[in-house]
């Protein structure tokens, strides 16, 4: 009898469990993959500086308190802007939607906050609103952002997933050295709107502080 050996034989039992539990994944997830991966028209991949900022966002785990997903309700679109579309996330690896809003949503924060605002806020959130319970992230003003890793990430996603980065993105160290000044230049543009002296000094030495990369990333969230 079919059920008898299923109950007794560990191998058949394990196979049966595997079939039953993988069924949902096969039906729900797999067929939708190609559909959901399509970017919206005109979507550009993030620059190396913005990627480095995304990595700072991940390192300090901003998504434990901030979402990046605007749901299609009037209350949300009034507060945060247009609701989110699947294609906008097509180049996000990993996705950073978050699951808890201890702080507000950030998916379109680049539309209504400025470099200056972020600088004040990250240095001391209570200076923006004294009721804020967000911790200050002063260490981001002195830690150096890892732009080389960000570059490696850009090259990896270009080669593995055809993310549309230009032909100058190559796996070699020489290509990275050639691209580096571009990143520093982007960083200087951000820092031009900032007042922290330490940040400017670090940039002059060719090092990008984490805060600059993070602000570049936050400004790109639109």
């Amino acid at each position, binding site marked *: *009898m079919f*059920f*008898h*050996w299923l109950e*007794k*034989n560990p191998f058949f039992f394990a196979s049966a469990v595997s079939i*039953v539990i993988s*069924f949902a994944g096969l*039906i729900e997830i797999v*067929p939708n993959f190609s559909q959901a991966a399509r970017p919206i028209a005109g979507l550009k991949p993030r620059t190396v500086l913005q990627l480095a900022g995304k990595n700072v966002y991940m390192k300090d785990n901003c998504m434990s308190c901030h979402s990046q997903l605007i749901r299609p309700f009037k209350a949300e679109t009034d507060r945060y802007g247009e609701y989110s579309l699947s294609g906008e996330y097509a180049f996000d690896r990993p996705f950073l939607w978050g699951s808890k809003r201890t702080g507000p949503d950030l998916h379109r924060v680049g539309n209504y906050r400025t470099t200056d605002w972020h600088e004040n806020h990250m240095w001391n959130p209570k200076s923006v609103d004294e009721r804020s319970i967000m911790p200050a992230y002063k260490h981001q003003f002195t830690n150096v952002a890892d732009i080389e890793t960000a570059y490696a990430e850009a090259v990896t996603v270009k080669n593995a997933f055809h993310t549309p980065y230009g032909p100058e993105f190559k796996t070699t160290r020489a290509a990275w050295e050639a691209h580096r000044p571009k990143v520093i230049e982007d960083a200087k543009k951000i820092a031009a709107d900032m007042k922290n002296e330490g940040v400017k000094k670090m940039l002059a030495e060719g090092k990008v502080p984490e805060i600059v990369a993070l602000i570049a990333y936050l400004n790109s969230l639109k």
Partner: protein
Amino acid sequence: MDIRELQGYASFFMTIFLVVMLYWYIVHLYRSEKRGERDYEKYGNIALDDEITSTPVEDKPASQRDYTEKNK
């Protein structure tokens, strides 16, 4: 037939199939007890009488067993 349609059919029939299996399983559980082929409730004793020296509830491998255990 595109993949979405295929997916729809696969999902529908597989769900029906598994639901039938589940109900068949209930019928099987009760029927084999009624016919005296099997006493499922005795397996509950595996936890109660679990000394290394105690007699196993079932000590023959599945392949050598004749499915006509007598219930008391």
